[in-house]
């Protein structure tokens, strides 16, 4: 089948190999992408998807193998060369300047930007043609994540690409925004543009893609037409084993453990969102899921509970006692733990070892200090416990946090808190960028924690995840929290309304 595809392929990869010290990221990868198709690249974290697309986009040079674009040898030595050849990429993390306008940001990312007025009209044209509503004069700092992504997509489309690479494009979008994006992508493919689509979300791939290449440990293990497979079959191809589906005995929630009473908080970051009059009570044994599009106050919500920020008004109570004036470690002593979203730099220090990172939050509860002096032996054995219990793939606790893949570091960060036996655990994006089997393990550990009587608050943009593990659901929108409702019987549409502040977003 590949031979037939290769004949009229847009891009053909033949035997691409790339090794990094200690790991072969891609091993003899071959496949081809046809013009006008949406080609899924599927694989767990660390399967080599990022390295592969970086080679196509000219960010990384392959050690061996060859790429052909429309039959000609394609060796981009930098992204500009790749763009000139018609390859564009929308990254998972946006590289936009908050203080500049949409048009200015787009001009900065272009190799030969046209004059500002021309560019503005071009942006308008493209955004209308592809159904991506966006005002070129708006400041990027005011845009939602979905709108920011549109900026990146339009920047790519202005270069008239033949191949558009999209890395986890829907991880930050509301269901409605996902639909808009899919419409755009379908329009593009109808015009003959090929799309290389990287995602963990199997349902999306089934809905959108015509062809899928599955990577595992750097090798192509399978290809298929995802429309003919079930999500479970796809996941099994990707993981190589059966998925672990979280199980949970419904239990009667106990007394209220943690309570936020009309909490308001002023955000100290330039483009942060203030929390406005947030109230929530979580009972022992309960998992409350908080949805919402990124940037609607999730970070601030977590910091109000972790003790990193002071409230401007309202109270946080633990079993009826006010803890609003306690600092992070005083709260930890009372078993109120948290795991922020940003792994590198917030929940973990990138250049420090896993042992040192274990010390970062576990010093108080695990008694890792004695009169201020560190007990390294005990700290290291705690780090080892986390690594073992949560199946963190690393040579050992001496390795720097930065050297772990995103998913593995996430397992470490969540494991570090879970093993400290919290009574209240607040996590933000617990499975973001984590592969399916690891995500299932993390979710199961959160459920186990609740089953043992902890109050668990999960902030996530993955609705499927929230529906799967939460007893009650609510959403943050512009710093306001909707009234929580039982998860049972909720539809994705209702949730979308809660996430949009109760009003239907007007379709473009």
């Amino acid at each position, binding site marked *: 089948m590949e031979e037939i595809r290769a004949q009229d392929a847009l891009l053909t990869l033949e035997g691409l190999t790339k090794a*990094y*010290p*200690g790991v072969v990221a891609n091993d003899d990868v071959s496949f081809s992408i046809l013009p006008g198709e949406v080609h899924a690249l599927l694989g767990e974290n660390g399967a080599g998807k990022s390295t592969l697309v970086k080679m196509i986009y000219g960010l990384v*040079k392959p050690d061996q193998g060859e790429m052909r674009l429309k039959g000609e040898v394609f060796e981009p*030595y930098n992204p500009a060369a790749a763009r000139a050849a018609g390859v564009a990429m929308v990254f998972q993390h946006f590289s936009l300047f908050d203080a500049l306008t949409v048009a200015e940001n787009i001009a900065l990312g272009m190799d030969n930007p046209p004059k500002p007025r021309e560019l503005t009209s071009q942006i308008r044209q493209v955004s209308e043609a592809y159904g991506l509503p966006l005002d070129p004069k708006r400041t990027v700092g005011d845009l939602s994540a979905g709108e920011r992504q549109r900026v990146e997509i339009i920047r790519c489309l202005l270069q008239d690409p033949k191949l558009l690479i999209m890395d986890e494009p829907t991880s930050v979008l509301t269901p409605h925004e996902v639909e808009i994006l899919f419409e755009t992508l379908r329009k593009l493919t109808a015009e003959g543009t090929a799309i290389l689509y990287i995602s963990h979300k199997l349902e999306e791939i089934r809905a959108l893609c015509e062809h899928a290449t599955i990577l595992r440990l750097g090798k192509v293990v399978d290809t298929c037409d995802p429309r003919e497979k079930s999500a479970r079959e796809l996941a099994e191809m990707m993981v190589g084993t059966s998925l672990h589906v979280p199980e949970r005995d419904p239990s009667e929630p106990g007394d209220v453990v943690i309570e936020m009473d009309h909490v308001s908080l002023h955000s100290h970051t330039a483009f942060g969102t203030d929390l406005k009059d947030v109230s929530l009570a979580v009972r022992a044994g309960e998992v409350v899921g908080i949805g919402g599009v990124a940037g609607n106050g999730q970070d601030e919500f977590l910091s109000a509970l*972790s003790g*990193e920020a002071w409230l401007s008004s309202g109270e946080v109570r633990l079993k009826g006692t006010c803890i609003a004036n306690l*600092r*992070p*470690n005083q709260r*930890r002593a009372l078993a109120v733990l948290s795991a*922020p979203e*940003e792994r*590198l*730099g*917030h*929940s*973990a*220090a*990138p*250049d*420090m070892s896993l042992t*040192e990172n274990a*010390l*970062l*939050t576990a*010093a*108080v509860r695990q008694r890792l*200090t004695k009169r*201020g*002096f*560190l007990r*390294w032996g005990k700290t290291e054995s705690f780090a080892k416990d986390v690594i073992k219990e949560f199946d963190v793939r690393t040579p050992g606790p001496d*390795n*720097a946090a*930065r*050297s772990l893949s995103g998913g593995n570091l996430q397992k470490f960060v969540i494991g570090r808190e879970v093993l400290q036996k919290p009574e209240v655990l607040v996590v933000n994006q617990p499975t973001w960028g984590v592969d399916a089997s690891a995500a299932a393990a993390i979710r199961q550990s959160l459920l186990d924690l609740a089953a043992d009587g902890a109050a668990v608050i999960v902030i996530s943009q993955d609705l499927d995840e929230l529906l799967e593990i939460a007893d009650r659901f609510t959403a943050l929108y512009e710093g306001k929290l909707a009234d929580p409702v039982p998860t049972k019987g909720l539809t994705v549409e209702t949730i979308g309304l809660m996430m949009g502040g109760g009003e239907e977003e007007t379709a473009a």
Partner: protein
Amino acid sequence: MIRLEKRPSPSRVWAAMTPVLAVVATMIAGGFLFWMLGKDPLESIRTIFWDPLFHETFGPYSRPQLLVKAAPLILIAIGLSLGFRAGVWNIGAEGQYIMGAICGAGVGLAFFPADNPLIFPTMILAGALGGWAWAMIPGFLKVRFGTNEILVSLMLVYVAEALLASVSQGLLQNPDGMGFPGSRNFRDFPAAHNAEIFTNTGMHWGVVFAFVAVIFAYVLLTRHMLGFHVRLTGEAPRAARFAGVNPTRLVLFCLGTSGALAGMAGMFEVSGPAGQISIDFNSGYGFTAIIVAFLGRLHPIGILLAGLLMALTYIGGELAQLMLGLPAAAIQMFQGMLMFFLLAMDMLTNYRIRFSMKTA
């Protein structure tokens, strides 16, 4: 083609190797510089690095000088390294050094000519307090108003120099000095004199304190929660806050400690090797200590070695001026080159060089 490839994690081997490489590169470039000045490069290098320690005639004189010059450098650099680790940039150690000297000497001279064993300890305390207070100015302004500690601490050096000139011609001027600027000499005031502990070794109380500071910093950074918080703040400020670090307290601790150590260094210098407060008593130790801190990789043991090496270039430089007629500026350039090469070589800890046949 030569390419740079980012390492997955910083190389420990290279982190230890770069200072050595930087020294070698400095010797080569320095030798070239001396050759262009018409001197024999090998002889110049030998005069700077070898003769002060092993020359038959000069060795016995210069060897004790090694400890005398290294002690203030090490003492100051240890303090600075704590701040540098946490991302608190105290560039004004020279000013804190001067203020420590003025306060320490002032307290001592106030008791002249009493003979009490408590005078010298009181002077140490006063020196530390003087440096601490001078460092608290940028510290307070930073935590209260968000000013930049680099600029404020640096500018305060010039204020301190002006104060030094003023007291050596006024408040602390030697009443029996026949109008010459400068204080009484501490050699004539045994209770306050920072004399050699063992004759002809250069070992004075400042050296003892420098070694104690090295051990203290080593224990703090590797074994204590406060040291962990210092390192964490430098590596990832947001993670530090999450870990419960109070940024205000940490900034004040780092600036205060470096100020106190610099102040002590100034007090030991003025009451010992320098002997008196004079207009130009300070000799740039506070600035050179910045190089020492980085050359020692901000690591206490590294700083100890770097301090000794830097002291050697001071002594060797003086010897080279004497013996070969090298200009004093050439030695300063030599020290500057060391910093330059060190920063350039630092790249090797985070990147590896790849040679590939393919050209773009």
